[in-house]
């Protein structure tokens, strides 16, 4: 199809981009073994001591747990609200249908700092104390649209007559959802949930405005960067998180393959 030369050129370019994407990541991974407190080039020496420091660090552990909790809650909210909105929009024609899509996409399309200060001042006005739930609401605003997009794309590809057929065969609404709609949506839900979880877990721009005294993992990382005292500990924590993330990433890739995004041709 494309000429040999252009294929070779594209391959070289791709390699360049891969290096561009991965060199900083490799630096993080390597510097988790830094013997010095301060980051400098080249690396002075190697040690695994920071991993045990991170393991015993109570603040790191509670920050990790809080991040996980917030991400799980936000993903849960996103799954429920996103599916509801997607089913509602795809099945019904009504006034303001496009507006719903636009509304849901706003938090993702507008800069996070705007969401942050809007929510922060909103909470202050109503006297809502900053807590896990204020963080979750902040994250849910942009997580919902991720699930919504996935589900709507999937629903567009399925025929609405499936639901009718199910009803014809005697199922009520809940049974239809459980046995017909949900299996069709399941992979879209999972890949949407994975991406929503990832974005919420690593979110810092909105979270700085909506967290009180709580530290999510990114806020903890920012605090350690400010201190500048034990940076390799941050690298060690990030190292572990990256290694653990490989699994959901591969799952995501498999799902994308199944849904036809990574078609085998």
């Amino acid at each position, binding site marked *: 199809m494309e000429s040999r030369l252009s294929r070779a050129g594209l391959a070289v370019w791709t390699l360049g981009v891969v290096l561009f994407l991965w060199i900083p990541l490799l630096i993080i991974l390597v510097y988790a073994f830094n013997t010095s407190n301060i980051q400098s080039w080249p690396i002075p020496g190697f040690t695994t001591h920071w991993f045990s420091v991170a393991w015993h660090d109570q603040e790191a552990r509670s920050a990790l747990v809080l991040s996980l909790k917030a991400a799980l809650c936000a993903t849960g909210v996103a799954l429920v609200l996103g599916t509801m909105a997607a089913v509602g929009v795809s099945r019904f024609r009504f006034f303001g249908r496009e507006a719903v899509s636009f509304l849901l996409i706003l938090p993702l399309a507008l800069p996070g700092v705007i969401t942050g200060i809007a929510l922060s001042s909103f909470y202050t*006005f109503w006297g809502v104390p900053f807590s896990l739930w204020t963080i979750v609401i902040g994250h849910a605003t942009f997580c919902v649209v991720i699930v919504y997009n996935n589900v709507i794309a999937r629903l567009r590809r399925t025929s609405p007559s499936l639901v009718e057929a199910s009803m014809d065969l005697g199922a009520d609404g809940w049974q239809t959802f459980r046995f017909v709609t949900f299996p069709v949506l399941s992979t879209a839900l999972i890949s949407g949930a994975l991406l929503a979880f990832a974005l919420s877990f690593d979110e810092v721009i909105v979270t700085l405005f909506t967290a*009180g*005294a709580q530290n999510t993992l990114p806020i903890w990382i920012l605090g350690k960067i400010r201190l500048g*005292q034990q940076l390799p500990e941050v690298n060690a924590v990030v190292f572990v998180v990256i290694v653990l993330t490989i699994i959901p990433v591969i799952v995501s890739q498999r799902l994308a393959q199944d849904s036809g995004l990574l078609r085998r041709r």
Partner: protein
Amino acid sequence: MTRHHRRVLGWSATALVVAGLAVTAAGCGSSSSSKSGTTTTASNLPTSIGKGEGKLSLIAWEGYTQPDWVKPFEKKTGCKVTAKYAGSSDEMVTLMRQGGGQYDMVSASGDASVRLIRGGDVQPMNPKLIPDFKNFIGALKSPAHNTVDGVHYGISLQWGPNTLLYNTQKVKPAPTSWSVLYNPKYKGQITIPDNAIQIADAALYLSKTQPDLGITDPYELNQKQFDAAVSLLKQQRPLLKKHWALASDEIDLFKNGDASLGASWPYQTNTLEADKVPVKDLIPKEGATGWADTWMLSSKSKHPNCAYMWTKWVSTPKVQAQQAIYFGETPANTKACAVMNQLSAGSCKQYHADAPASYFDSIKFWKTPLADCGNGKTDCIDYNQWQKAWTEITG
């Protein structure tokens, strides 16, 4: 009704609903924003420290809550400490104002403490509950920045100067004056803090180099003096590599060869020296600004007993010495000197813990610039203007 009309009607209705919600929210908001909590007045100060509540939430400068003294405290009192770090007094004030009852104590410097007192964000403390209070140096027992009309709004902690830091191998001969920071010879190698209070440092420099401006107090500037300081900083801007906002910024800058001169805290010097970077710091001949920190108790604190226990703990000679050596500052407790020399020989003298009162008086401590400067002057530039000017300088 045509489809188009329906759409227009529908959109107008939605817009009205949203606007109505917003206005209601704003209206309701105004009433809730004028809430006020119970305040401790001087007459109902606690007379003893009760049982610990198990938790303590602090806003602190980087380096003020090291495990070396936090872990023994947690073990002894059962109060679990969580700290939020702030890089400037402004951040501390904003965190306290925003945080509601989330934070119990803040280690405020002199330029934040008055704002906190005026804003009602901190409550009076009873120095009688702190046994080491009587050993504090005289000037820090009831200083103007934390004691108002005899009421103590916090307990002094430590103090220190803003120093001139330089790389001994790249800056020769060794500097003796703040003028090196304004010298085009070192273009691209200089760093100063990203803090509006830096205008005072420029004013201090001008008070010695341009005495006809008549600057006596770098925090009490009239329009002409203020403009001169701001213009000096604007001239300095192209010479800077970076404004450091976080202590680690300056550490990275010096370690990685990006900067070889800067305004600094002793904390950075200690960290760099520990990592074998060839740096030294000094107080130049024009003198220096400095900070005197106070642990203040939030007026909405949920754990006041743990807070008092913490204050008591960090006022003891041992912890004062540990913190002084770690950060490179000077303890308020006179008894800390001996312990400092035990922990690190010669440190008492190095950090001026045994210095006479004249040394203390030579440092121009941070304080909040107010329009009403005292001494009959009322035309001073207030801090809001300083902040606006700072955005102009760094923007």
